[in-house]
């Protein structure tokens, strides 16, 4: 039987009134005596303190009221204990274990709920214990915020977590400062190099042509230059890319890394150095590749023709052309080659420092919005198949609880479902499991997740 419309307030009221009517007769007759009996139980006091500790530790009411992310912090727990019974300690351990489990949950919904529940707990502290701290006249054995209880060492050990968290900004700041300093050094070196290059350009128009062409025509080269200026990538420790594994570098860094080991660069490097040694007027010829080769066309001076190094360069150029033909293109055609050229020029002026991988490109693909399934997802998916599950009740003429264990793949599909518990292997269990297997969950990031969900089959 379906209720066609969402439940109205009146429906909800009626439902809860009906629920109120299910209180067993006489259930509250001895309620006050039961409460009074619990007042004398020391174990109750211990549980009470634990509850209060949880309330005082989960949130800061002000932050909760503002909707701020109140970082869960452990209560101020003194290693005192109100009683010395082992049972008490075991219960405390069980309680803290629950919280440890709960704190591993990391979906947005769970975070929100934790905050909200924490806010409620905080409100309890304020409401029940500390409406007015100055006026509070608490029993001497219980101090809110410093509850008398025993915590297992494992939980006590977790308490420094906020300190670890607080140290994160230090490292972040340190890293940023280091990166900024490295970037400044890189910029300075680059600037010096550029000055040096400019000086060389002033005396060597062919080389100036090389730089101008390389910079003006190559996007990857520009990216490489930017990467060199990137504060985050300016750490000199990473300035020399590991030569062993170019594939491990970010995609954007591949051309630079490949340039390091490419025969083209190897051929180009030596003539460049020699050109520098000579005062550097050989840039046009030493650049190599089609680009550089074009830059040198018609600009070689007559002196160059008499230069004994010219022959070697020409030979190098020829061999380089051949090697480029043979070498697989790692960049994007001419752009990749030009990028290598600029890197070579930069390497020359910066002493061989290669541009590190751009951190932006190391971030990888964007994460899916959903990291996992939360309770609402499960409830929604189970709600969607509930009508089918209830048909199993009608079909099997069974009333009771059927628990189904199922696995959900990251795609959101239920990969397997089987009844567990008392109805395992029964036709009712199989029917319910088959219904559950039709459930659809939203896709999520991560590994396949398993759930166990009980269905109450009742009129």
């Amino acid at each position, binding site marked *: 039987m379906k209720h066609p419309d969402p*439940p109205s307030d009146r429906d909800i009221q009626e439902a809860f*009134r009906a629920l109120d009517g299910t209180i067993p007769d006489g259930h509250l007759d001895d*309620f006050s005596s039961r409460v009074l009996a619990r007042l004398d139980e020391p174990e109750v006091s211990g549980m009470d303190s634990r509850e209060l500790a949880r309330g005082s530790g989960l949130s800061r009411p002000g932050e909760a009221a503002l909707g701020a992310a109140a970082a869960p912090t452990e209560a101020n727990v003194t290693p005192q204990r109100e009683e010395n019974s082992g049972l008490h300690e075991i219960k405390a351990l069980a309680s803290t274990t629950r919280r440890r489990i709960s704190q591993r949950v990391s979906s947005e919904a769970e975070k929100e709920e934790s905050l909200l529940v924490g806010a409620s707990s905080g409100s309890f502290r304020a409401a029940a214990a500390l*409406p007015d701290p100055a006026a509070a006249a608490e029993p001497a054995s219980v101090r809110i915020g410093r509850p008398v209880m025993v915590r297992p060492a494992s939980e006590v050990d977790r308490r420094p977590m906020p300190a670890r968290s607080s140290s994160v900004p230090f490292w972040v700041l340190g890293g940023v400062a280091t990166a900024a300093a490295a970037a400044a050094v890189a910029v300075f070196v680059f600037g010096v190099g550029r000055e040096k290059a400019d000086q060389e350009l002033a005396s060597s128009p062919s080389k100036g042509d090389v730089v101008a062409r390389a910079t003006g025509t190559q996007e990857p080269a520009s990216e490489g230059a930017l990467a060199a200026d990137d504060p985050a990538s300016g750490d000199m420790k990473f300035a020399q890319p590991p030569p062993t594994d170019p594939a491990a570098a970010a995609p954007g860094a591949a051309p630079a890394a490949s340039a390091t080991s490419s025969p083209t660069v190897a051929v180009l490097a030596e003539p460049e150095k020699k050109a520098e040694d000579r005062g550097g007027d050989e840039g046009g010829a030493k650049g190599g590749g089609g680009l550089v080769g074009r830059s040198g066309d018609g600009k070689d001076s007559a002196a160059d023709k008499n230069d004994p190094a010219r022959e070697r360069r020409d030979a190098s150029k020829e061999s380089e052309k051949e090697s480029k033909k043979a070498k697989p293109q790692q960049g994007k055609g001419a752009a990749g080659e030009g990028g290598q050229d600029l890197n070579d020029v930069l390497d020359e002026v910066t002493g061989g420092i290669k541009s590190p991988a751009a951190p932006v490109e190391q971030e990888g693909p964007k994460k899916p919005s959903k990291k996992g399934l939360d309770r609402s997802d499960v409830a929604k998916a189970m709600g969607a198949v509930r009508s089918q599950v209830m048909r199993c009740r009608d079909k099997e003429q069974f009333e009771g609880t059927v628990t189904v264990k199922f696995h959900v793949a990251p795609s959101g599909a239920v990969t397997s479902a089987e009844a567990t518990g008392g109805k395992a292997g029964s036709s009712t269990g199989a029917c319910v499991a088959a219904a559950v297997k039709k459930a659809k969950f939203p896709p999520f990031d991560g590994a396949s997740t398993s759930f166990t969900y009980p269905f109450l089959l009742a*009129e």
Partner: protein
Amino acid sequence: LSKAQSLPYSASMSDDAELIAAAKRGDRKAFSDLVVKYQRRVYLAALHVTGNHSDADDVAQETFVKAYRHIGGFDGRSDIFTWLYRIAVNTSLNHLRSQKRADRLVRDPDGDEGPVGERLDPAQRSPREWVEIGDRLRQVLEQVCELSPVLRVTLVLATVEQLPYKRIAEIMEVPEGTVAWRVNEARRQLRDRMTTEEQAGEETS
């Protein structure tokens, strides 16, 4: 409406003052009178949040135990029932939360970390309770119980207890706007669930 719920929200404040003062002095008889006076309302509040009598009984008892232990901090600026209600609501939430973690969240020990499903409160009720409640109301209760504890509590306070948002905000110590958002969100989720279930029913039929 039941007798307890038909009472004005802040009824008998003057009578309570004497009982509270005596209870602060350690008079257990006075505190027992307070328990008797408010036990049903507190119990119902716990029942509305937890959704089953077993948990409601535990929560109600714990509420009064906490109240007794901290009644010295009750300054009388608010209604005693407001104070008790706050304790009951927060105790219920903590109860649900702890149960959800330990018992209702059944998860494979070798599974990956992450959020898991909750065994919903309706499963806690006996078939007899369901029969008494009726099918349509059962469905409503079931859907309300599928809400998160915070949304459920807020919705119950607003619709069942019919408390004004301001009072709910005091009880839950959140801004009124948050209360309004939670109520709307709870209704939206109820509507979505109903729609989803309807669509699923149509597809299978």
